[in-house]
C-alpha cells in the first residue's frame, strides 16, 4: 500500500509544518491568549507526531497532561494577570535581532550537520520495531524506572504545595 504510506507521510509532514507555524505564532503573537492557543495547537501536533511514531500512550499522556493541565494553568495565569491585548505594550523586547542571529546560526550550522551524518543507528533489519504496548510501559515503569517514578511523585507533591503557597492571596503576614 505505497499510496497509503504516501498519504500518511503527507499527513506527518503537514503536521510538522503546522507545528512550526503554530510555534512561530506562539512566539510572535502579541496577544498572549492567542500565543497560548498556538502553543496548545503545537502540543496537539506533537502528540500527533508521537502517535505517528508509534508512541500512542505518550501522545495521549501529552494531550492529557499538557493540553489539559499546563494549558489550563497558563490560561488561568493569563486571566489572573490580565492586561493582554493592550496595543501599546510591545510584545517583544529589543534584543530580537541578536536572538534571531544566534538561533539562525544555530540552525544553519546543526541542520546541515544532521543531514550530512547518515550514520544514524539504523536498525539492522528494516522491520518495524515492536510497538511498545501500554503493558510494556507499565511494567518498565514499575520495575526498571520505579525509583524516578516515586521521586517524581514526591516532587509533584512538593510542587503542588509550593505553587499553592507561592500564589496564595491572603498571605498570612
Amino acid at each position: 500500500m505505497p499510496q497509503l504510506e504516501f498519504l500518511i507521510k503527507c499527513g506527518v509532514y503537514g503536521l510538522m509544518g503546522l507545528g512550526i507555524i503554530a510555534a512561530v505564532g506562539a512566539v510572535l503573537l502579541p496577544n498572549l491568549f492567542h500565543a497560548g492557543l498556538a502553543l496548545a495547537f503545537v502540543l496537539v501536533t506533537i502528540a500527533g507526531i508521537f502517535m505517528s511514531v508509534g508512541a500512542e500512550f505518550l501522545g495521549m499522556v501529552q494531550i492529557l497532561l499538557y493540553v489539559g493541565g499546563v494549558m489550563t494553568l497558563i490560561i488561568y495565569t493569563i486571566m489572573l494577570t490580565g492586561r493582554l491585548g493592550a496595543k501599546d505594550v510591545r510584545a517583544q523586547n529589543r534584543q530580537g535581532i541578536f536572538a534571531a542571529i544566534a538561533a539562525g546560526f544555530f540552525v544553519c550550522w546543526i541542520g546541515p550537520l544532521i543531514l550530512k551524518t547518515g550514520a544514524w543507528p539504523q536498525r539492522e533489519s528494516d522491520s518495524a520495531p515492536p510497538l511498545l504496548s501500554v503493558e510494556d510501559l507499565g511494567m518498565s515503569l514499575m520495575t526498571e524506572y520505579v525509583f524516578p517514578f516515586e521521586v517524581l511523585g514526591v516532587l509533584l507533591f512538593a510542587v503542588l504545595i509550593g505553587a499553592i503557597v507561592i500564589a496564595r492571596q491572603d498571605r498570612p503576614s
Partner: protein
Amino acid sequence: MIIPLEHVLLFSLILFAIGMVGVLTRRNAIGILISIELLLNAVNVNLVCFSRVSEDPMAGQMFAFFVIALAAAAAAVGLAIVVAIYRTRNTVQTDEIQLLKW
C-alpha cells in the same frame, strides 16, 4: 518509521530554535514560559524519535514521559511565581522586573 529520522530531527531543531527565540525576545513572563514549553516539547520529539530507532525503545519514551511530568511541575511553580510577582509588582513584563530589591 514512517518518515526518515533526519526530518523529525530537523523539525525538532527548528522548533527548538523558535522556542529559543521566543524565550530571548518575549517581554511577558508567561510568554517566556510558553516558549520554554516549546523547547521541552522539541526535546521530547527528539527523545521519542530516537527511542523509536534505538535498540532500547523503552528508555526514550520513559524519559519523554518524565520530561512531560517535570515540565508540568515547572510550569506550575513558574506560573505561581508569576502570579505572586504580578500581585506585588502589578506587572509581568520581565524588563520591568529587574531590581532584586523591591
